[in-house]
């Protein structure tokens, strides 16, 4: 282009003191100003939602892992109970039941609980120093399965009840079924919670994006006038919302991870004073898988926030057009 007209321009006043150096030093400004997006509030909402999602994921993973461990333990073991009767007869029945168990394929170990061991088992309910001789306490035989193949527990049960009428076999299946039901219930609740948390996050982002587009209506119009495609305009908003999602997600995810970390550290710190505390809190250890799940939830939240804002901008632009 010609520069002939430049010579006809009047002398311009010098730039205001201080403004030029400041402006020259800055990189290209964001086309959509971040100050027009309700960033702080949305970061807080996303952080809270990610925190809840992280707690849900961690708890679900912990419950599932613990339940799986319990099931593995109990299904490796069955117990035979001999109803209490006359002492010598009962001792003979116990020995006979143990012999039957030892001869059953798939059994690795048979252990008859001594009166002292039985007493220790009952101590939490009946107190210490108890003389079991005065009570009709059944005798218990612990039978460990070798796990190499399925033990024929049906045959063992049949043989026991045929030869020793006072014997019963407990293979813990009922308890295991209830445990599976509880675990499945917890997982279902976790999934429902995650869906609700996700929905609330998406709705929050949708409203925030609509507000941002409305606030920046003049910017959007100018971008349209200079030939911007909707995709370009959506990308300008998406950039801000990805940052918001990542920031909020990290705060929420780290907070959730910190909670599980603190719960794991609590027994070691000797806090609480309850001797059962390690056992109780042991349930709430999500392990590497749980922490990985929390990290994944952070990434998903950030990406979902960006994607939701992009789709919302597209839809809003179609409405404007």
């Amino acid at each position: 282009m010609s520069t002939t007209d430049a010579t006809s321009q009047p002398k311009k006043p010098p730039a205001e003191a201080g403004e030029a150096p400041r402006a020259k030093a800055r990189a290209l400004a964001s086309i959509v100003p971040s100050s027009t997006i309700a960033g702080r509030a949305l970061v807080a909402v996303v952080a809270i939602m990610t925190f809840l999602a992280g707690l849900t994921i961690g708890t679900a993973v912990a419950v599932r892992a613990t339940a799986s461990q319990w099931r593995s333990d109990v299904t490796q073991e069955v117990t035979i109970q001999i109803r209490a009767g006359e002492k010598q007869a009962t001792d003979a029945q116990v020995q006979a039941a143990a012999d039957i168990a030892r001869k059953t394929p798939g059994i690795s170990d048979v252990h008859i609980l001594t009166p002292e061991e039985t007493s220790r088992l009952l101590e939490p309910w009946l107190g210490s120093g108890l003389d079991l001789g005065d009570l009709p306490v059944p005798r218990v035989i612990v039978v460990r399965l070798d796990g190499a193949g399925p033990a024929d527990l049906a045959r063992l049960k049949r043989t026991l009840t045929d030869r020793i009428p006072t014997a019963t076999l407990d293979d813990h299946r009922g308890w295991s079924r209830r445990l599976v039901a509880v675990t499945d219930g917890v997982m279902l609740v976790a999934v429902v919670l995650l869906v609700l948390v996700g929905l609330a996050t998406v709705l929050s982002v949708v409203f925030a994006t609509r507000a941002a587009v409305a606030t920046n209506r003049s910017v959007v119009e100018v971008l349209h006038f200079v030939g911007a495609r909707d995709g370009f305009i959506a990308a300008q908003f998406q950039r801000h919302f990805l940052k918001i999602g990542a920031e909020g997600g990290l705060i929420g995810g780290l907070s959730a991870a910190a909670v599980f970390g603190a719960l794991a550290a609590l027994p070691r710190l000797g806090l609480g004073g309850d001797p059962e505390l390690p056992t109780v809190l042991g349930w709430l250890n999500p392990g590497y898988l749980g922490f990985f799940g929390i990290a994944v939830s952070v990434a998903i939240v950030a990406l979902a926030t960006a994607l939701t804002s992009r789709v919302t901008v597209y839809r809003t632009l179609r409405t404007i057009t």
Partner: protein
Amino acid sequence: MVRFENVGLRYGMGPEVLKDVSFGIEPNSFQFLTGPSGAGKTTLMRLLFLQLKPTRGLITLFGRDVSSLDPDEVAVLRRRIGIVFQDFRLLDHLTTYENVSLPLRVLGKEEASYRGEVTELLSWVGLGDRMHVLPPVLSGGEKQRAAIARALIGRPEFLLADEPTGNVDPTLARRLLRLFIELNKSGTSVLLATHDIALMDQYDARRLVIADGRLYVYD
């Protein structure tokens, strides 16, 4: 380049704002669009800039029927058109330089590739020393020139200017007219909407006069 055939437009269920408008704009041409306030100048400009679609008739722009364009195609066509608004439409949070370079940024160009071009254009319109200030600091004339520079930076084939001299003094108005004439001589078609008779008298060009929604062409 532009062809209107029996174009009519009404807003909602209201009366027709434009009636049976037919005209063409050729490449490398210069024309004024004039008429009394409320006659439909801005509506016609909005049709030319694809901001509105006609309720009847046919508009072809660069050989394309505008009624069949999807949003992305509209965006691509707009890149061939420069527009200068009466109210400038500069973004207050961007510097003059950033405002003017916006059409190139929209194309995805790297800043290094257009920095020299934008700087040269800003100097050409007399804003060489104002390129790093924000629009609220600029005077009305400077804003107008920044808006013109933004319309020109993409080297449009067709320039639309809506009352570009409406907010400036007669001296600056004459200078802006010279700028448009020079731009036309470099190959860009220009449509300059104005109700300033004195300004139109300074240059012998085709006049499109709009009155009561009808267009009259004086070659």
